């Protein structure tokens, strides 16, 4: 199995995975800064502005036509929060030249040039981002944030996290806050960007039929980020154990279906030795169709179409979600509580344990079949400072017994019960 080779290059970490598995080259750039109220909205706005054009292709239409000309190269961005960081991810993928006849330019070279121009040579006016781009992307970002409420599943999940983490930066949406937008001007935004390029942790990933040496040669003259002394490491922050007091939040809206979300603190994160046991705990509880939540809330009680849990290993949160008839809230909640209680008491069959392990191991192995998934897995170790190969994680999962899972369960604390319901009825 090929692995990433990592080198420090030009003040960033360069990771190259040579493989012939794909018909494409995949490129990803991770730019991470601490998640903070003062910068969250500006940082989220920046990739929106960058994708409008670069010095070589200053008009958005030209910029996108260039991508089309590179055989419809994919270019996209994401803004996410992981642990205590806000991370901008820029992604490109372009077909391997071998599949398109008569192509004279190297598509990998062209894609790297495009990404480099986009990051280091944005369209400027009087030393600031082009004003018209900033104005229109502020509007786009505002609409994106406001549109979250349209998808009630996502809305309920975000609201539950916000309530649960109301005293921590993690309450913030990765996209930032609508109220911050008005005060953003092109000069100030560009200053934040320049600062970000100096201080952020930056990782550049390339996956495809190439070699680290060939990539280094292609990168010559690209990504000129002056003044960066070193690749800035991420600082893993230990989550302090807090005094959790259970809280219930009910929100009313014009909805047919109620969304019941439970936010729990797992008190385990990615770097911990018992992380594999936490993955298994989540799998037994609600990660799969054989899991307790699916079986008891959906299959046995027929209360819901979806009932699942998700473990956020960088922040150590465990989130449960289900969509139910509004009148069934108490019933569903008590079934969910019973499942948490059962795992705490070790009421888990050998069968549940072994199926859960098999499913987690399968999803780790399937991760190898997508270039961007492999990049995402590797980035976990960069972010957490914990080197743990997929093979090591698989072996750790195989070696984990029920006792360790019960230990996790005893440390899991229910923090917030969030219920989104209709406007009628008794409160």
């Amino acid at each position, binding site marked *: 199995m090929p692995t990433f080779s990592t080198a420090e290059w030009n003040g960033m970490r360069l990771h190259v995975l040579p493989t012939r598995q794909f018909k494409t080259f995949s490129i990803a750039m991770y730019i991470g800064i601490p998640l903070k109220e003062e910068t969250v909205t500006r940082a989220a706005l920046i990739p929106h502005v960058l994708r409008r054009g670069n010095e070589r292709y200053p008009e958005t239409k030209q910029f996108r036509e260039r991508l089309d000309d590179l055989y419809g190269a994919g270019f996209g961005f994401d803004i996410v929060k992981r642990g205590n960081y806000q991370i901008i991810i820029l992604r490109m993928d372009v077909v391997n030249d071998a599949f398109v006849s008569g192509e004279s330019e190297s598509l990998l070279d062209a894609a790297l040039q495009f990404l480099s121009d986009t990051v280091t040579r944005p369209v400027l006016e009087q030393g600031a981002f082009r004003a018209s781009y900033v104005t229109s992307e502020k509007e786009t970002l505002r609409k994106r944030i406001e549109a979250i409420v349209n998808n009630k599943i996502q809305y309920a999940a975000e609201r539950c996290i916000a309530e649960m983490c109301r005293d921590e930066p993690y309450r913030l949406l990765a996209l930032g806050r609508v109220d911050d937008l008005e005060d953003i001007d092109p000069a100030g935004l560009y200053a934040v960007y320049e600062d970000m390029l100096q201080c952020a942790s930056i990782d550049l990933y390339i996956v495809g039929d190439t070699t680290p040496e060939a990539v280094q040669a292609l990168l010559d003259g690209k990504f000129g980020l002056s003044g960066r002394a070193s690749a800035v490491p991420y600082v893993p922050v230990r989550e302090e154990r807090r005094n959790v007091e259970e809280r219930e939040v009910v929100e009313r809206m014009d909805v047919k279906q109620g969304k019941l979300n439970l936010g729990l603190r797992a008190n385990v994160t990615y770097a911990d030795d018992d992380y594999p046991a936490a993955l298994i705990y989540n799998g037994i509880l609600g990660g*799969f169709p*054989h899991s307790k939540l699916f079986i008891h809330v959906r299959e046995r009680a027929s209360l819901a179409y979806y009932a699942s849990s998700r473990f956020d290993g960088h922040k150590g949160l465990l989130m449960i979600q289900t969509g139910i008839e509004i009148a069934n809230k108490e019933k569903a909640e008590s079934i969910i509580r019973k499942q948490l209680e059962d795992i705490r008491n070790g009421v888990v069959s050998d069968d549940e344990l072994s199926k859960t392990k098999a499913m987690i191991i399968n999803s780790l192995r399937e991760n190898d079949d997508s270039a961007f998934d492999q990049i995402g897995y590797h980035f976990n170790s960069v972010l957490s400072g914990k080197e743990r190969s997929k093979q090591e994680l698989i072996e750790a999962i195989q070696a984990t017994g029920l006792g360790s899972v019960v230990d996790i369960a005893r440390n899991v604390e229910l923090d917030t019960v969030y219920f989104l319901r209709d406007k009628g009825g008794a409160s």
Partner: protein
Amino acid sequence: MKQLRYDHVQETLYYEQLDNGLELYVLPKPGFSKTYATFTTHYGSIDNHFQIEGEEPVQVPDGIAHFLEHKMFEEPDGDVFEKFSAKGASANAFTSFDRTTYLFSATDHIEDNLTTLLNFVQHPYFTEASVDKEKGIIGQEINMYQDNPDWRLYYGLLDALFQKHPVRIDIAGTIESISRITPETLYKCHEAFYHPSNMMVFVVGGVDPQRISELVKANQDAKVYNRQGEIRRFYEQEPEPVTEQRKVTKLPVALPKCLIGFKEIDGTPPGAAALHKEAASRIMLDILFSPSSESYQSLYDEGLITDNFGLEYNLYRDIAYSAIGGDTKDPDLLVERLKSFIARYVEHGVSEEAFQRSKRKKIGGLLRMMNSPETIGNEYTKFKFRGMDWFELLPAYESLTLDDVNRRIREHFDMKRMSVSIVTSS
């Protein structure tokens, strides 16, 4: 097995039809850890009125294909998901207008998992109690979609476009229609549409085609199937006019949503002609409305569209439709603008430059899709049931001419066959 070589994409597809009529496809993907396998019946939500040769015509409740998909996972000895989980396979299923697919992906125990897939899909087991229980679960699925504005927008468009054709019916049916489903109706539909001659298996991943073929054959040989007569499917003749030109749905949304669509009453023969039409239609929409188009940029600059502005074209055997739109502050103004762009393109056509660029983009896009075993399996199956070979789409793009696309624009955009769907809070 027969080998179908597709040199332009460096793929080899293995194919055979078994004695009972089942079609088997295997695409080896060297270097891949996972295997993705699908077992699909050519039966979807639109097949609610049918007749098996030599039997009486049957009309069944809306949403039954989807209900059946849910119920197939229950066996006398328990839930099928458990069997897949025990072998580390991630299983699922989905129902669309014209097909129902059961699937798993796994990195180990491929032969055991494939056997489970073949067996559970071919073994119906329904009881009164389990059918009743499912009504609660699917009722929540229906409610979930009722709260989803994008879903309401899309189905609102189909409802506005089509007066008679069953694509206008919700795939999951309604709480009322599913209340009429019984074990007997489920058995009836299974018997009609899950005959091997109406189904196909597609396996893609790090597998040996010969071994897969032997396994599937042995499995099928051990099961008894009588020859089945032809299935007649009754889709009411769709008239030219739309149901309504403008349909408004009230639902809380941050910004209104708006889709426009054009329907075609289609009689394109399957095979090369259909593929050609599919390719020309996709390039047409791409040139007119993709993010690199002139219209997209000017609508975006006006603040009339957002990043979720999108487009699609769907070609079935007897109908086709397009859908174009997204969030907008002013649905009626957006519709006016889209109509005036369309009128201009109908009159003047698109440029050679834009055409060549779009072609390159579509070819690159297809190659990128071929990195994904799921995409390959699902796209190939979807195209197959609509009478097309997905791997021939790339040469179909290559052989298109500018004239083809300009002719397609003039055919497709007929204002008499256009509807607008809007979702808004007020």
